[in-house]
């Protein structure tokens, strides 16, 4: 092999460039680790504290009274699932519709600007305030706490995230794709729903998952709405247990075995959220063709 003929000055510059490159790459890797570290740390700590209290009974039993050994959070796990289902049924359709309006039909209009502003403000409303609002809007007229009102609170909290990510993702769809659909003689509304939204679907799903995962761990909006329940309930018009609520109550209690159950509950909550998000990702990515994104 012939050696490269470079004047010394060039060699030096090349070495500096290589060094800068290495430094920048190193910084990027370090930042990535800093981002991942807290999550991993939390997870490891949860496993350390909670795994030992996990048993089959944890997933099948309802809580036992103080002093009795055992008991589980089956009702809270089911309750969380019901609350999140109701919340998603409210938050996802409303949020996606709002996002479609912002990006496709109302672009540049006063109404769209007002909606966007409202969504941003809603996103900043503390969750406890959302709980109180739903308390006075749903719980007071109904006369009792209910799973339904808890779902409404979670649903409203999902709307702004879903709405704004849907808008952002739709705006990223190239105009050429819209034009292609229109030039085929497809009516605009149909082109939006079948082409533009479909093209942006993986991003929109990510937005929905983000909103879902965020409200799955919410406690505050449920205190005045779902209220919690020590026994089984799967009815929408009765108070219902939820994992975050149960963790909250157990963690604040003076009993050691309740503390341990709270740790286990936190671990289960995190694992279930990760499972739910992964499941949706898996199911939705199977149908969509490779090379789409």
């Amino acid at each position, binding site marked *: 092999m012939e050696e490269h003929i470079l004047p010394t000055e060039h060699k030096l510059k090349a070495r500096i460039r290589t060094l800068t490159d290495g430094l920048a790459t190193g910084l990027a890797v370090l930042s990535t680790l800093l981002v991942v570290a807290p999550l991993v740390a939390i997870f490891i700590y949860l496993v350390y504290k909670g795994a030992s209290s996990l048993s089959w009974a944890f997933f099948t039993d309802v809580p036992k009274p103080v002093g009795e050994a055992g008991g589980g959070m089956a009702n809270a796990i089911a309750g969380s699932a019901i609350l999140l289902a109701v919340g998603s049924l409210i938050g996802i359709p409303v949020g996606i519709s709002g996002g479609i309006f912002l990006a496709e039909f109302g672009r540049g209009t006063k109404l769209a600007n007002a909606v966007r502003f409202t969504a941003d403000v809603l996103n900043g409303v503390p969750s406890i305030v959302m709980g109180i609002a739903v308390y006075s809007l749903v719980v007071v007229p109904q006369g009792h706490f209910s799973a339904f009102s808890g779902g409404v609170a979670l649903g409203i909290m999902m709307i702004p995230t879903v709405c704004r990510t849907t808008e952002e993702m739709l705006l990223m769809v*190239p105009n*050429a*794709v819209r*034009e*292609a*659909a*229109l*030039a*085929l*003689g*497809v*009516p605009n509304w*149909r*082109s939006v729903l*079948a*082409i533009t939204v*479909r*093209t942006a*679907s993986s991003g929109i799903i990510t937005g929905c998952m983000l909103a879902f995962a965020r409200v799955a761990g919410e406690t505050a909006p449920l205190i005045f709405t779902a209220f919690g329940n020590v026994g089984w309930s799967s009815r929408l018009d009765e108070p219902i247990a939820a994992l975050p609520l149960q963790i909250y109550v157990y963690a604040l209690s003076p009993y050691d075995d309740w503390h341990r159950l709270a740790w286990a509950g936190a671990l289960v909550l995190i694992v279930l959220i990760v499972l739910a998000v992964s499941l949706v990702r898996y199911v939705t990515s199977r149908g*969509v*063709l*490779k*090379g*789409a*994104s």
Partner: protein
Amino acid sequence: MGVGIEVINLNAWYGTNHTLQDINLNIPANHVTALIGPSGCGKSTFVRCLNRMHETNPIARVTGTVRIGDLDIYEDANPVEIRRRVGMVFQRPNPFPTMSIYDNVAAGLKLNGYSNRRALDEIVEKSLKNSALWDEVKDELKKKSGASLSGGQQQRLCIARALAVDPEVLLMDEPASALDPVSTSKIEDLIFQLKSQYTIVIVTHNMQQAARVAEKTGFFLNGRMVEFDLTHKIFTNPSDKRTEDYITGRFG
């Protein structure tokens, strides 16, 4: 079968910019008509007025008459109907990225409520054969995404997609300008074959291309049509000094 296009006093604006001024011409049925001219001369705007795509831009405006066959497209029909009869192929290939090859071709029909499976299969096959893509993709119709094809294949896919809705006119806005020479010559062969079934209007930057594919050629300059004549006359013996300057490479 293709139909003729008659354009009378067509004017178009983008905001206050008067991009097309008093265009009059007759585009013959089942022929290829090329539109040439420097960038920004209005030739793209002109073809977008022929399928009412121009007005999808909120600041755009059009006056004048365009008759396609015996249909006055600005008087007798809505834009959606027009676009089903007047297909369009764009400068950059724009397949629907999340759809398979099959779904890309069937999109125009499916989205208009057409659902007869067997008929769709036939139309997809016929359209892909017409666009000379069938042999390259027939084994992976439903497996492969339209976006995974090469640029030249994507453009032929877009042509198949336009043909599937069975238009009478095919507008092509610089269909080969983003493609390599081999793909370009495939597209040109295709244009040559398609003119027996469709009236084709092609915008091009490439004068050799106009000379190769078109029977008639129009020369646009600064929003006006300077000259419209048989292609060989435009390239050998133009009537207007500006046309001669352009084709001999003195400007543009």
